[in-house]
């Protein structure tokens, strides 16, 4: 707990430098000026910066959101606030994409771009369809810059349960959690520790292959992970999960394969392939509890096949990222209760 607090303090202190290093360069000049005028404690709390065309510039802080006057003061009154102009919007889009919209077609299709530092910029506007599927977004009128804070150490309390204390082997693990309960943060930290090694429990690092379809875990920018995912991790960024797993198995010789949000038919086949190759699997799925996930055919199949050995259930009963339960799927007994 003490360790956690110290880490949080450290990340807070560097928040201003994170913003000036990663966020300010992608903002148009005028908004950049406004943000540099802001008091340090406000900058520290910024979680999102929202740009909507012809609407006030909004900053989402830890507790509430706030607007900024054209002189760089915080305000709650829309009439006094700085309004994002069309020009600001057009510039912001160019800067976010490094003046290369064409290089981010796939990302725009998915609705967000990852920028340097692993921060995500959500995009809204008019969707252009091609045979019923989103081809691109044009007339972009909304940007949401979400500042990513790296929280390390979240995996500390689950690692003893997913690594065998005697053989030091990693168990096949599935993490389930409702949205926004810290699933991605947890899997990232598990990957980091598995890959770099966990001296506290005598686990030596092993090769991890990470298929990061939505660039969420490693937060890649130009293919280079912006988040710490360990020293023995190979990241396949933006690659469809099933295909990516196969590619990693064939080419990179991983000991552990990690991916998030399984749920498609082909994912199950790829998992079985990994199992046959003797590779350990670490993955996540949406869902509040076991009953909920077995209602989905693919996940039920996976559970019936008894692929996984450990099930971690996340929730928010005691704040985001609460570990509600860790189940040993071999004998269906809880390990923490």
């Amino acid at each position: 707990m003490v360790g956690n607090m110290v880490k949080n303090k450290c990340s807070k202190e560097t928040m201003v430098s994170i913003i000036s290093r990663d966020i300010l360069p992608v903002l148009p000049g005028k908004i950049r000026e406004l943000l540099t005028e802001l008091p340090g404690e406000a900058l520290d709390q910024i979680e999102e910066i929202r740009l909507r065309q012809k609407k006030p510039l909004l900053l989402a802080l830890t507790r509430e959101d706030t607007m900024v006057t054209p002189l760089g003061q915080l305000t709650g009154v829309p009439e006094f606030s700085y309004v994002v102009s069309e020009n600001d919007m057009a510039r912001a889009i160019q800067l976010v994409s490094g003046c290369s919209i064409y290089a981010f077609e796939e990302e725009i299709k998915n609705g967000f771009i990852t920028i340097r530092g692993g921060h995500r910029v959500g995009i809204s506007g008019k969707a252009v369809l091609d045979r019923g599927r989103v081809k691109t977004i044009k007339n972009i009128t909304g940007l949401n810059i979400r500042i990513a804070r790296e929280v390390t150490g979240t995996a500390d309390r689950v690692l003893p349960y997913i690594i065998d204390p005697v053989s030091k082997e990693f168990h096949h693990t599935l993490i389930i959690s409702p949205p926004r309960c810290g699933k991605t943060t947890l899997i990232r930290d598990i990957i980091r520790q598995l890959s770099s090694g966990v001296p506290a429990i005598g686990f030596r690092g092993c090769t991890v292959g990470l298929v990061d379809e939505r660039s969420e875990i490693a937060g890649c920018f130009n293919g280079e992970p912006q988040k710490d995912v360990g020293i023995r991790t190979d990241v396949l960024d933006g690659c469809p999960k099933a295909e990516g797993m196969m590619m990693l198995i064939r080419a990179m010789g991983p000991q552990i394969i990690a991916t998030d949000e399984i749920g498609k038919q082909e994912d199950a086949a790829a998992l079985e392939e990994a199992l046959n190759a003797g590779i350990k699997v670490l993955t996540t799925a949406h869902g509040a509890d076991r009953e909920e996930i077995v209602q989905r055919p693919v996940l039920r199949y996976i559970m019936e096949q008894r692929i996984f050995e450990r099930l971690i259930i996340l929730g928010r009963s005691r704040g985001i990222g609460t570990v509600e339960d860790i189940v040993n799927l071999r004998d269906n007994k809880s390990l923490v209760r």
Partner: protein
Amino acid sequence: MFKLIGVCLTLTACGYIGLTWARIYEKRPQQLTALEGALQLLETEIIYTATPLQEAMKHVSQRCDPDISELFRNMAAELEKTEGATAGEAWERAADDFYSGTALNQRDLHILKRFGASLGVSDREDQAKHLEMTRSQLRLASTQAETLSRKNSTIFKYMGFLSGLFLVLVLY
């Protein structure tokens, strides 16, 4: 004796001026063709490998005709500054800096600048169209410049020398 040296100097000076003018006429079609080739390289970077603009510019500057590589080097440098300029503005500045050292004329510069306005702002399909259009404009300008060069470069070469000769006769 001094007169003879004077005659020689006048002739060389005027001849040299004529040759320089002629060389500009000869250089322009070459540089336009080189630009067209460089845009072809840029097209590969953008359409097939979807390389981000700054890197794409660097690659092109390394591989294109050294005569015009400055434009792409300038552009990469402009994009590296994180001042919040759009690709269009950066390209405009890069083109202005590049222009003075070349044989290009205002019309050519205008073609380049118009291209800059669309650079990087749309998807690959659209970028391909703009690149193709600019390349065909450059190709046309290059053919015209070629004809002009064939006509004028010989004239300027002779005219420099002949006007020197004329000056000598008048002053003698």
